[in-house]
């Protein structure tokens, strides 16, 4: 505790020296990304951290302690901004680890007794390691949040149900049909069938790279559910390689109307709903 206070004192009194050294060190390090961050911004960030660090040191070396909260908040904020700026985890962690050099220099000049010097150095190392790991963890956490958000966005984005014509809906599927997405697809489709009173829904699988038994089963279930709601389904976008694979797998799709292209499926849907599209008799504009 005595050492702690002494460290706090020397950090406070020699803040400017440490700051100068530290910033110089960071600027010289290859891990600093000048393309991502301005020098003035780095200087401000370093200054703020150092003053918070000096204050927190008075409260002991347990970084979980309430007295360290300002430092932890600052680290969280720094991690967030560095993730947004595109830093890697080690680049972010170097912000803390690079302080070691300048801090050790200060300890070396203030502490003369060798035994005491070792103890102080060790205490400072442990402390900075903890903070370094903390910022790394925060960095990681931020990255995971970004990934999680993107996943959710992707789930919602990838399953639009569009109306092609009176009574005709289309559901263009893209990507992998895993269970979570199939659930959303099914809900969206059934909801839209209720809303529009559509008679026919075209499920287009042109964008689904692999149709295995699970995908086939999901498709068949979706078709069955739509049928219970009073709508017929047509599956389109069956490419030759998919057709061969389905046959070899032994999946029976004979209950469902299938077509090679969305255009073919649309033509069938028009016929079934009694609608038709005709080419206009009006002459094309002269060239």
């Amino acid at each position, binding site marked *: 505790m005595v050492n702690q206070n002494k460290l706090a004192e020397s950090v406070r009194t020699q803040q400017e020296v440490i700051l100068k050294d530290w910033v110089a060190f960071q600027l010289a390090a290859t891990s600093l990304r000048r393309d991502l961050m301005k020098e003035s911004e780095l200087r401000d960030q370093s200054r703020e951290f150092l003053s918070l660090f000096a204050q927190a040191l008075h409260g002991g070396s347990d970084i979980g302690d309430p007295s360290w909260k300002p430092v932890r908040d600052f680290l969280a904020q720094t991690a967030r901004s560095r993730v947004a700026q595109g830093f890697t985890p080690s680049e972010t962690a170097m912000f803390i680890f690079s302080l070691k050099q300048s801090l050790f220099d200060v300890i070396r000049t203030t502490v003369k007794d060798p035994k005491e010097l070792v103890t102080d150095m060790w205490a400072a190392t442990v402390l900075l390691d903890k903070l370094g790991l903390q910022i790394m963890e925060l960095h990681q956490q931020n990255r995971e949040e970004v990934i999680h958000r993107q996943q959710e966005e992707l789930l919602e984005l990838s399953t639009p149900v569009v109306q092609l014509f009176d009574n005709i809906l289309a559901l263009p599927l893209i990507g992998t049909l895993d269970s979570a997405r199939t659930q959303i697809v099914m809900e969206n489709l059934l909801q839209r069938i209720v809303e529009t009173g559509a008679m026919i829904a075209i499920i287009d699988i042109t964008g689904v*790279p692999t149709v295995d*038994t699970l995908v086939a089963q999901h498709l068949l279930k979706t078709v069955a559910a739509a049928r219970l709601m009073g709508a017929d389904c047509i599956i389109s976008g069956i490419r030759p390689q998919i057709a*061969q694979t389905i046959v070899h797998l*032994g999946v029976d799709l004979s209950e469902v109307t299938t077509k090679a292209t969305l255009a073919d499926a649309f033509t069938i849907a028009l016929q079934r709903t009694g609608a038709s599209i005709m080419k206009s008799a009006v002459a094309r504009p002269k060239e």
Partner: protein
Amino acid sequence: MVTLRDETFPIRSSDDIVKVRQITREWALMQAFSLVDQTKIVTAASELARNTLEHGRGGEVRVQALQAGARRGVRLTFVDQGPGIPDLDKALRDGFTTGNGMGLGLSGSRRLVNDFDIHSEVDKGTTVMIARWK
């Protein structure tokens, strides 16, 4: 027979199944498979990877790119230490399932590939080897 490439990948989550599909497609492409051959081996890989995860409680897959004379192939070996399959003949029959699937995964993938080999021991685990040649 020459092994051009040989790697092993874990199957621990449904994300890994997606990865197995991607890897299989990439390797099949590397072996200059036609689109139909690619699709067949990828679909079989998808089925067996899911079996490894759901029935075998996870495991791994060894992927090999092979060359035998003028023929090039991709071999996949799925290994798990799960409960094993008590009756292989039954498991290989169309429509037989212990879960709530269609019961076509194992029998279907057998028809999608050129070589198919399965070993299973109750309480020890299951190994399924498939290969497709162009």
